[in-house]
């Protein structure tokens, strides 16, 4: 059974990576988008270090979440039908997608990290490894969330709208744009409850771009990013098991 599961995860993972590689525009967007966010925000606020991790989080979020958008159409016609009708547990589908999203996030970070030199805070090999781990963890959590929401959506447009409505505001109040210390008390409370605050903390505490970061500690970041990831993953798996064709089966 484990072999069946692992081979199915491999099939989904390899397929997603080949797809990603063969869609050149995605690769360009993948490399260029965090760079653009960082350059514009950093230059605009006159502090290149302050927005480094916030930009990285935003691009990891986009990459991971939007890599799951294809499942909406794929389960009606396409590769996912093969997975859903194969004798592998359907959680292999979610696991393969999440693994691919996590790896893409890690790779994306590796492209981006050398730019830290511009901020005057270069990293050692151990820092790079820790940062990669943090990126992979954030990517896995975001992909799980994206998969869960995508399976609940009927159209890619609906999914896109829903993700923009939920994720962009959460990113804005994660500490990526402003510190909790300068915010009104009620926003500060919301920031403390925002899962993305802890995603950002995981990056901030492993990638030393902004030494003045005053958000949660590494332990809290790792703990809540992992807990959220597990919850999103469980929700995604339960959704697929219960409703293999998503909303279409209603």
């Amino acid at each position, binding site marked *: 059974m484990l*072999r*069946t599961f692992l*081979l*199915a995860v*491999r*099939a989904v993972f*390899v*397929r997603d990576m*080949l*797809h990603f590689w*063969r*869609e050149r525009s995605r690769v360009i967007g993948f490399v260029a988008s965090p760079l653009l966010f960082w350059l514009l925000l950093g230059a605009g606020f006159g502090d290149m270090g302050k927005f480094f991790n916030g930009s990285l989080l935003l691009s990891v979020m986009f990459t991971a979440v939007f890599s799951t958008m294809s499942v909406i159409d794929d389960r*009606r*016609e*396409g*590769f*996912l*039908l*093969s*997975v*859903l*009708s*194969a*004798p*592998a*547990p359907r959680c292999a589908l979610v696991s393969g997608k999440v693994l691919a999203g996590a790896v893409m996030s890690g790779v994306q970070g590796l492209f981006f990290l050398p730019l830290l030199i511009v901020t005057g805070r270069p990293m050692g090999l151990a820092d790079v490894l820790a940062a990669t781990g943090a990126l992979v963890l954030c990517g896995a959590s975001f992909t799980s969330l994206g998969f869960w929401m995508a399976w609940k959506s009927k159209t890619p447009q609906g999914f896109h709208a829903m993700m923009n409505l939920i994720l962009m505001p959460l990113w804005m109040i994660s500490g990526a744009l402003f510190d909790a210390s300068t915010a009104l008390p009620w926003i500060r409370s919301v920031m403390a409850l925002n899962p993305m605050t802890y995603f950002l903390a995981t990056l901030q505490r492993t990638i030393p771009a902004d030494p003045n970061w005053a958000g949660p500690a590494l332990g809290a970041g790792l703990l809540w990013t992992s807990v959220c990831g597990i919850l999103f993953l469980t929700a995604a798996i339960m959704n697929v098991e219960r409703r*293999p*064709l998503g909303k279409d*089966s*209603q």
Partner: protein
Amino acid sequence: MGGTIVEASGLRHLYGQRAALDGLSFTVSEGDVYGILGPNGCGKSTLFRILCTLERPQQGTAAIASVDAAKGGIRLRKLIGVVFQNGSLDRRLTVRENLIAQGHLQSISGPGLQTRVDELLAEFGLETRAGDEARTLSGGLKRKVEIAKAIIHKPRVLLLDEASTGLDPAARREMWAALNRLRTASPVTILFTTHLMDEADNATRLLMMSHGKAVAEDTPERLKARVGGDVVEFESESPGLADDLKKRFPVEVNESGGRISVETPAGHRFIAEAFEAFPGRITSASLHRPTLEDVFFRVAGELLEGSGTEAADA
């Protein structure tokens, strides 16, 4: 033919108030090529989704090799190969990559998988296209790859849902030639759904479905024999012609959707008599041997609309 391999009993499935399946029962014997013929929206695709465990029946049971579709998900999926109406190829993967991915999904890996993939590429004449992305293939070639994918693990039952949809007649013939070669080479049972009567002729047994129910089941030849002699079809703009034909001649007359169809032992004589009896009321007449369309028209009282249309089924 062998024992029962697919069994559906009292299947009922509702979408809101509409019954897609309404007490459907049938059995398929091992080795059969079992066709399910019906117009779009008659419930074929719902049945298909239940058989490949993508949907749970709300009432009744469906089983393959005694494995219940509602309970034995993974066990049942080991027994089947599936060709979907809308296709399940990954457009950006090559033919070989699609087959390898399918092998992994079926728990086949290593040299055994490579050998099986080479075998299938040769069997379906796909060797020269093995490195091409699936999106570059013609509709007919895509179907061949779909079938190769579906049988990579040598399933006991091959399920095809409107598999020839979108194919031209030549590609459809080629697809069936490939399926017939497969049958001679391995003891696979084929269950296919279609709304095309010429495709339904490939079945060794045929179930006709209308509004979620079975309306007839037999071999295509015996089904056609139910309509005796010739079938004459009239076109007319004169209201009440069907009723007048019934009153005037001792024949079976069916009317639906503007088509008047008459079953008669000697069609050529009947046409002459009808024109004489109702001068000016008949626009045109045609005569042919009974087809499955005629049988369906007779047993279901509706047409197998749009042979060749691509509308989605329920």
